[in-house]
């Protein structure tokens, strides 16, 4: 089978234009540590249900120190990470049927480069506002944010289900200024 037609490739990549704008305009890390809103709790539950963790509770993380401790905790859920990874792999495979590999990689690289250029500075500023000057931790936050942007890009290209993809919901939490830290000790931690 040959490469998809250019018109098809263009249509498949179109959702990325909106995502790029959202990456530029997001309130990266602006709401970390604040009390969780009802909408954020709903989003987090929808994200968890989408990944098959509907019974997992949601816990708020109050500060950067706790956020680092949660991310380093030895009882983090490998099942949760692996579930995200298998979603990522499935989306990548589907996206690969919609366009030539080099076009897909170029589009994803563009998203990563854009998020890389924005998120580290935003994380460092947010942390310093809380009196935290930790070069490694602000990079950890930026790495998580860039991963989410990449996942959201894949979902935008490769998801064809009726309900919103969990990666899109997770990205929305980042976009609103939060840092979803993952499942640790049986709860999903949202900073």
């Amino acid at each position, binding site marked *: 089978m040959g490469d998809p037609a250019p018109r098809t490739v263009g249509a498949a990549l179109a959702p990325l234009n909106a995502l790029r704008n959202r990456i530029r305009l997001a309130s990266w890390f602006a709401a970390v540590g604040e009390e969780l809103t009802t909408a954020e709790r709903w989003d987090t539950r929808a994200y968890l249900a989408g990944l098959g963790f509907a019974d997992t509770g949601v816990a708020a993380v109050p500060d950067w120190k706790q956020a680092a401790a949660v991310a380093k905790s030895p009882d983090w859920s490998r099942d949760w990470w692996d579930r995200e990874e298998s979603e990522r792999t499935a989306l990548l495979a589907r996206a690969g049927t919609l366009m030539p590999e080099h076009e897909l990689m170029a589009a994803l690289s563009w998203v990563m*480069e854009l998020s*890389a250029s924005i998120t580290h500075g935003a994380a460092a500023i947010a942390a310093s506002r809380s009196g935290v000057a930790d070069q490694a931790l602000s990079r950890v*936050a930026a*790495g998580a944010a860039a991963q989410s942007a990449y996942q959201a890009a894949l979902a935008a290209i490769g998801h064809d289900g009726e309900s919103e993809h969990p990666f899109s919901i997770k990205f929305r939490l980042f976009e609103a200024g939060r840092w979803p830290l993952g499942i640790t000790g049986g709860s999903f931690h949202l900073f």
Partner: protein
Amino acid sequence: MSEQIVVKHTADLKDAPEEFRNAVAKLVISHAVNELYGAQVFDEPAIALAPNPYAKWLTCRVAMEEYGHHVRFRELGEEMGIPAEKMTPSEKRPLSIFEFPLQSWEEFCVIKLLADLAEILQVEDLLHCNFHPLRNLARMTMPEERFHAQFGEDFCTELVATEDGRRKVQDAINRYYPMLPAFFGASVSRNNEIFRKWGIKQRTNDEMREDFLGRAKELVEDKLKLKLPPLAAAA
């Protein structure tokens, strides 16, 4: 012995002697290729090997920074008129260290500790390069390179706190360290002579190698309390 020539802008490179232009192009190609190789062969696979989300996200960020260095060198190369395909691994043979696939988190931390130290030395030598676009790029890249080496030191320090970790880190040092002195090139090097003649680089390959060996000893033996393998026996 340095020729008194300073090139402040890429556009002025066309007026520089051919030997100067070729030498600068060699350096830019080498950095562009090796930064990309490093990101693809070590940093990206290390995300899966990292022991927790903190380490995974930090490694993800480091991979992006290494890729970003490739992009910066490639963009400078393109401004200089070097075809993009010459600045990718398919066109240029990589350093030997890149031919050994990464197998463990401990290996990755040792690579950050020692290979990024070697990279720091290479970039340090360009901080006063008289081709200013390359000098400026080196100055911009240096803080991130230092952070990457610090990443290696911090995680290695954490790992050697347990007996199993000590053994694994020592094993990785035994396998990777012997490859690193070759990073700095031959003792008698026509390329290095030309780099120094034009003030593009400052030190001989042997001077940089000696500096690396000293700094590696300080890190591995004085700080981590591990052993560097004898180089002659490993060669």
